[in-house]
């Protein structure tokens, strides 16, 4: 068991597993937040419902935190091992028909910025300004107001868009790589999986992009 976790193959199983946890999260998180396009009431009620069930909330937070720490830990140790694998650089790197995809070459840089994004994101929203509102007689946090405020700050919107584009690449590569890491890649699946990964990545990122852009461009303050 320990031997398995120390091996490169075992650590890729962990990366894939924890990546999948987060892939599931970003998809549902994106879908739920589409309510920002519907109404302040629906959005606040949705947010309130999530924080109301403490067991579910803390459980989900624990799983996500553990998964993120594991993912980043494996990312760092594997990237270091990979760097040591190539001690001298080529003057020219593979190109033309033998070139690998761009996204796959920069998983570490994408990941590092995504990590910075996640931390900043929690600070601005989860631990950000606290306003209260009453919906149908229930007092709850007015998250909608926070979102509208933040998404009217141009710098924040730009940072958001940049990070989402990085996420697009991270997911487009990660979502198909995970099948190989898990050992479920078959000859027939190869082309199809790359397409499915792109479709998944585009859905998640387009959904997320629509939210700040809608608020910034259409929604009044």
């Amino acid at each position, binding site marked *: *068991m320990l*031997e*398995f976790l120390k*091996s*490169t*193959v*075992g*650590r*890729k*199983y962990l990366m894939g597993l924890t990546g999948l946890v987060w892939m599931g999260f970003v998809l549902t998180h994106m879908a739920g937040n589409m309510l920002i396009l519907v109404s302040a009431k629906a959005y606040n009620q949705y947010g309130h419902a999530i924080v109301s069930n403490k067991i579910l909330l803390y459980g989900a937070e624990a799983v996500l935190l553990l998964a993120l720490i594991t993912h980043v830990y494996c990312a760092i140790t*594997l990237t270091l*091992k*990979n*760097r*040591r*694998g*190539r*001690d*001298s*650089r*080529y*003057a*020219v*790197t*593979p*190109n*033309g*028909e*033998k*070139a*690998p*995809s761009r996204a*796959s*070459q920069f*998983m570490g840089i994408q990941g590092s910025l995504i990590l910075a994004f996640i931390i900043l994101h929690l600070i601005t929203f989860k631990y950000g300004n606290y306003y209260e509102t009453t919906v149908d007689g229930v007092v709850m946090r007015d998250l909608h107001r926070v979102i509208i405020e933040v998404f009217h700050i141009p710098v924040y919107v730009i940072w958001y868009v940049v990070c989402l584009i990085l996420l697009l690449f991270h997911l487009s*590569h990660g979502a*198909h*790589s995970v*099948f*190989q*890491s*898990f*050992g*479920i*890649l*078959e*000859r027939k699946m*190869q082309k199809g999986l790359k397409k499915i990964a792109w479709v998944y990545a585009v859905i998640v990122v387009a959904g997320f992009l629509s939210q700040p852009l809608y608020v910034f461009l259409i929604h009044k303050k």
Partner: protein
Amino acid sequence: MEAKKTLNLTLKVWRQKNAQTEGAFETYEAKDVSPDASFLEMLDSVNEILIKKGELPIVFDHDCREGICGSCGFMINGNAHGPQKSTTVCQLHMRQFEDGQELVLEPWRASAFPVIKDLMCDRSAFDRIIKAGGYISVNTGGARDANSIPISKVNADEAFLSATCIACGACVASCKNASAALFTGAKISHLALLPQGQVEKDERALNMVSQMDAEGFGACTTTGACSAACPKEISLTNIAKMNREYLRASFAQKEEVAGGDLA
């Protein structure tokens, strides 16, 4: 018949005395190269001129020159075995290039493949991975009848495709992580698909992966650069199969081995 137009090329070749010294690029002119010559024949003629001038020839590995032994291989303008797919450098012909082109020739670069001299590197790390489990144990004696063990056509074909790996090292050379996953995967898959490979398949997967890690190769990031460079087009599915075999073997019940105390 019209004579074919010959090529004049500029070669920037990595020259390195041995593993201990630093190397550097040297520039050479290859003149009047026939488009029908193989890449290694072109280097042979450059070397003849160097030898006549009393200089040391450019060292490169080669043996069969038929694309079957896996001895040859170096980087040409960043690509292992040159720009053409599914080809070893001994089977690459000069008609692939244009008159006046500059070609940068570098050895495979990987910590696990130290340069021996110029374009030749030490690939014995691959031999040690094979030694760790890339075999089957059979009793010696008369050869068995060829068709006495039934094997499904699907498995036979898939095993054959894995077995075409000639261990040239282009996969390691092309991978940004210098990962040996494609090579090790091909060897594990080849034997895991056949009935003869079943007896030792757990130890094989465990030992070969652990040797691969110990040699200092990097991990797989699924960039696919290995398979794109592979002269035998070994598929990434071999890496998936290796991972699956390794997972199964890691969690399989270990057999009690008698004899430790008895022997």
